[in-house]
């Protein structure tokens, strides 16, 4: 082997290793194939999940989120590093394969990369390898010295992943060095032998190594060349086969994970794909109880998580010390899969996940706010998994006592408070209100073009009834022919569904859908983003639905709504995005446009706004749940408004109002901070003067 340098041609330096290299190739590829096959075993036993549709939409996701690394700049340092590394990998892929093949076929040149194109490609990749190498150095320094908080692993979730992370970074650095050394030794040898030298990019890692090797003897260069090749090959295959055991499996899986990612926001997966609602009763078990109840895509999510911690960094439940950190929903499932689907031997044991790797409180702690999913660069899904786990718990009767009463009341009375159905429209029927703003109840001979879907909290909660009344007044001002369902309306069931009670949800939905259709209305409006999301995504075959902020915004644009100037000009307003209006339905600008149309209104943004909005604490049944937490989400949110310099929080959701008003009290900010619903503010500022007679 060592004698190989005696050969005259640099390209012959590898000749004596050919069999060895070939053996390593075969071994490496075989190992990788075996590992991947084993990793696929649970996916084949998983629940079905049809994601083969709409290839164009999926490809465009791949272009944006995978190739385009769309989410990464949200974290500046880590994001920049990742974009550089990713770009480097993409560029270097061809070079790496070329090098691998050269070991067994010395004169191999990748098609398309001969001649000039090859030289240019080499120069680019010289720099790419250098950049990736430097990124590894920076990343290791970050991990070891700056230690960003989001990488920490709280004790209850297991051991730190730092060693693994650093080890993997080091391996990539070694790969880059080996690649560069290979090129450098070759160039140095060529130059000593008076052959045409492959030009190395100035100041790149290969170039620096070439300079260092310039005076080395030919035999040394031969050994270095041979050694660099071996190091490159071994490191390459080691990485390939080691990644499926740790946090870097995403290098292989991310492309698939993004391609198969969920396409529709705000929706939930059905209990079982391919089973119609009518046949649901025949399904033996609901939801996820054992690992194998997850869908294959959800398992792919587990493999794909890069452990970057961004989801948990943005999770409000995690922020207030609830026992939930979305990152570990994934990591714990992955650890479980690795343990129960080992490389050798029998796999799977169908153990219950709740009580084993997840706690009940952990799963109930989620407000389904969507902050985690919004942040994940790999488009990992959490809400569907959490809802599926809840479905499993509900099916086993495993529901906190605090939620059983409201669920029972929803079943018997159609609202979580257990209030009488006939009182559902009391907010509208009060005499004084009927005089200024008559609200029709459709169905009793009355019909309307526009149906105002009020939902439970606005119907029954004394404070929130004001949102109902102001919404009605705005519709009245617009001259809409509108009505409500009154006693025929039941809870939209939005949270019922998200808390895993699918059967009860279906009953509420079917009832409401029937009443809505019978009303003959052509459009629906609601001021409750949860109802909005339910009607828009969970109901089928009902008229189109809008949130009141969308209606107001378009009427402001059309000039049909004009505002009086604010009297109090010292107030500073900030808008809190409700999760189910903002993140889940992308209505960010309409409420802001409305606010900005009010003369004299000074508005500031909180740092966490729009798609990074921080959940106020959750709506619907979440108001009944008694979470284990150190602080309230609402209190944190109110502090954010204080930090932004605001003293009025505007929101557009009755549940946000409950949480924020409570939080203002808890934070001791009464008198210094107040909250108002967009509809209330609009109603207060709307210019109502009668049109001037011509």
């Amino acid at each position, binding site marked *: 082997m060592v004698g190989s340098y005696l050969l005259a041609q640099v390209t012959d330096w590898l000749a004596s290793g050919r069999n060895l290299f070939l053996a390593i190739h075969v071994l490496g590829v075989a190992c990788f194939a075996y590992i991947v096959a084993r990793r696929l075993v649970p996916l084949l036993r998983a629940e079905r999940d049809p994601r083969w549709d709409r290839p164009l939409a999926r490809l465009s996701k791949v272009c944006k989120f995978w190739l385009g690394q769309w989410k990464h700049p949200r974290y500046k340092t880590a994001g920049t590093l990742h974009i550089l590394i990713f770009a480097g990998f993409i560029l270097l892929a061809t070079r790496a394969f070329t090098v691998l093949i050269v070991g067994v076929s010395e004169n191999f040149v990748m098609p398309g990369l001969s001649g000039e194109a090859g030289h240019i490609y080499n120069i680019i990749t010289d720099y790419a390898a250098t950049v990736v190498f430097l990124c590894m150095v920076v990343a290791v320094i970050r991990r070891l010295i700056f230690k960003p908080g989001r990488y920490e692993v709280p004790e209850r979730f297991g051991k730190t992943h730092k060693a693994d992370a650093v080890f993997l970074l080091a391996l990539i650095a070694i790969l880059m060095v080996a690649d560069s050394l290979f090129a450098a030794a070759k160039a140095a040898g060529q130059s000593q032998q008076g052959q045409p030298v492959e030009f190395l990019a100035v100041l790149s890692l290969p170039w620096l190594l070439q300079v260092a090797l310039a005076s080395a003897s030919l035999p040394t260069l031969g050994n270095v060349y041979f050694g660099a090749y071996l190091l490159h090959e071994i490191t390459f295959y080691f990485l390939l086969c080691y990644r499926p055991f740790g946090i870097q499996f995403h290098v292989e899986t991310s492309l698939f994970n993004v391609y198969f990612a969920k396409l529709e926001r705000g929706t939930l997966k059905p209990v079982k794909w391919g089973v119609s609602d009518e046949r649901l009763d025949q399904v033996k078990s609901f939801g996820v109880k054992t690992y194998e109840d997850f869908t294959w895509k959800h398992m792919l999510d587990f493999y794909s998580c890069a452990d970057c911690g961004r989801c948990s960094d943005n999770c409000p439940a995690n922020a207030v010390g609830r026992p939930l950190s979305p990152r570990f929903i994934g990591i714990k499932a992955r650890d479980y899969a690795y343990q129960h689907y080992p490389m050798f031997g029998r796999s799977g044991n169908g153990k219950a996940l709740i009580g084993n790797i997840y706690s009940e409180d952990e799963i109930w702690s989620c407000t389904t706010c969507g902050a985690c999913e919004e942040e994940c660069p790999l488009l990992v899904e959490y809400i569907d998994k959490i809802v599926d786990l809840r479905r499993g718990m509900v099916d086993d009767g495993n529901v906190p006592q605090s939620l059983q009463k409201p669920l029972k*009341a929803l079943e018997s009375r159609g609202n979580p408070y257990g209030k009488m159905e006939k009182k559902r429209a009391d907010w509208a029927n009060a005499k004084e209100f009927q005089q200024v703003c008559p609200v029709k109840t459709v169905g009793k001979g009355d019909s309307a073009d526009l149906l105002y879907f009020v939902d439970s909290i606005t119907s029954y909660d004394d404070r929130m009834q004001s949102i109902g009344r102001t919404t009605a007044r705005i519709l009245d001002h617009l001259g809409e022919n509108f009505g409500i369902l009154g006693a025929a309306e039941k809870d939209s069931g939005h949270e019922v569904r998200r808390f895993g009670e699918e059967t009860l949800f279906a009953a509420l939905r079917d009832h409401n859908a029937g009443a809505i259709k019978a009303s003959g209305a052509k459009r629906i409006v609601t001021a409750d983003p949860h109802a909005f999301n339910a009607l828009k995504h969970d109901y089928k075959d009902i008229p189109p639905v809008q949130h009141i902020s969308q209606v107001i915004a378009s009427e402001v644009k059309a000039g049909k709504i004009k505002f009086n100037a604010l009297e109090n000009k010292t107030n500073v307003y900030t808008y809190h995005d409700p999760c189910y209006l903002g993140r889940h339905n992308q209505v960010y600008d309409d409420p802001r446009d409305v606010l900005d149309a009010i003369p004299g209104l000074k508005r500031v943004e909180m740092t966490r706004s729009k798609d990074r909005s921080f959940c106020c604490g959750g709506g619907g049944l979440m108001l009944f749940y008694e979470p284990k937490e150190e602080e309230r989400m609402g209190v944190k949110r109110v502090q954010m408004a204080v930090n932004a310099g605001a003293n009025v929080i505007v929101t557009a959701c009755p549940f946000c109002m409950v949480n924020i008003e409570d939080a203002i009290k808890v934070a001791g900010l009464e008198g210094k901070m107040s909250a108002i619903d967009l509809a209330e503010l609009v109603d207060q500022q709307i210019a109502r003067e009668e049109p001037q007679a011509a």
Partner: protein
Amino acid sequence: MEILVCARRVPDTSENEIELNSAGNDIEHDELVYSINEADNYAVEEALQIVARVGGNVTVVTVGGEGDEEVLRREMAMGANHGVLITDDAFSGSDGRGIATILKAFVQKGNYDLILTGVQAEAGGAQVGGMLSALLDYPFASLVNSIEVLDGRKLKISREIEGGNKELHEIDLPCVLSIQTGINEPRYVGMRGIRAVASVPIPTFSASELALDPSVVGEAAAKVKRVDYFVPALGKGAEMLHGNREENVDRVLELVAAKGGLK
């Protein structure tokens, strides 16, 4: 272990606005929603947990009418093996002793090791459990808040007594226990569970099937009769605090201290 749980359907206090009827001796029953009496639900859960540990069957029985099938189904959806409805026109208007007499007749047709009742019905007098045990000549313990099955047909139970203290007893089987709420965390039953048992037949028993003499039950035999039902007028005892938060907190502390609640 064969366990019988006596359950009752009551208007759900949290989901109804209770109004008096025009005669003023009962509540208005139109538009009411009903559910199983809360304590009875805990009793069923406890029975299910015992059976899960030591094996056996759980039967839930109720004395009432057709509408009461609803609670039996709910408890069957929880996991009870059988639901039984005891119904007869002759039973209407029974007082506590009457109900106990009816239940006794039913118990004697079966072979139960343990009979559980809720500690009391929301509208009831906490009498049936005790009377049933006396009629059957079984041992009885009330306010039970934990049950452990011992060898040799014995149970170890604890009872909640004044001031939150606990008392431990051994009790021989068969026996009757009245179960305190909070003994466990009853499992959730949704529509799906109820639908799954919707077509399971529920056997019914009438007075004659239980060989009961109609003259010992029902209104005629009742020696306790409700003569009035009223909502007490709000008394004086309440004091509204009207200060700001700090003042109110101080005042509450003072009041509690004055009553000896703070030492």
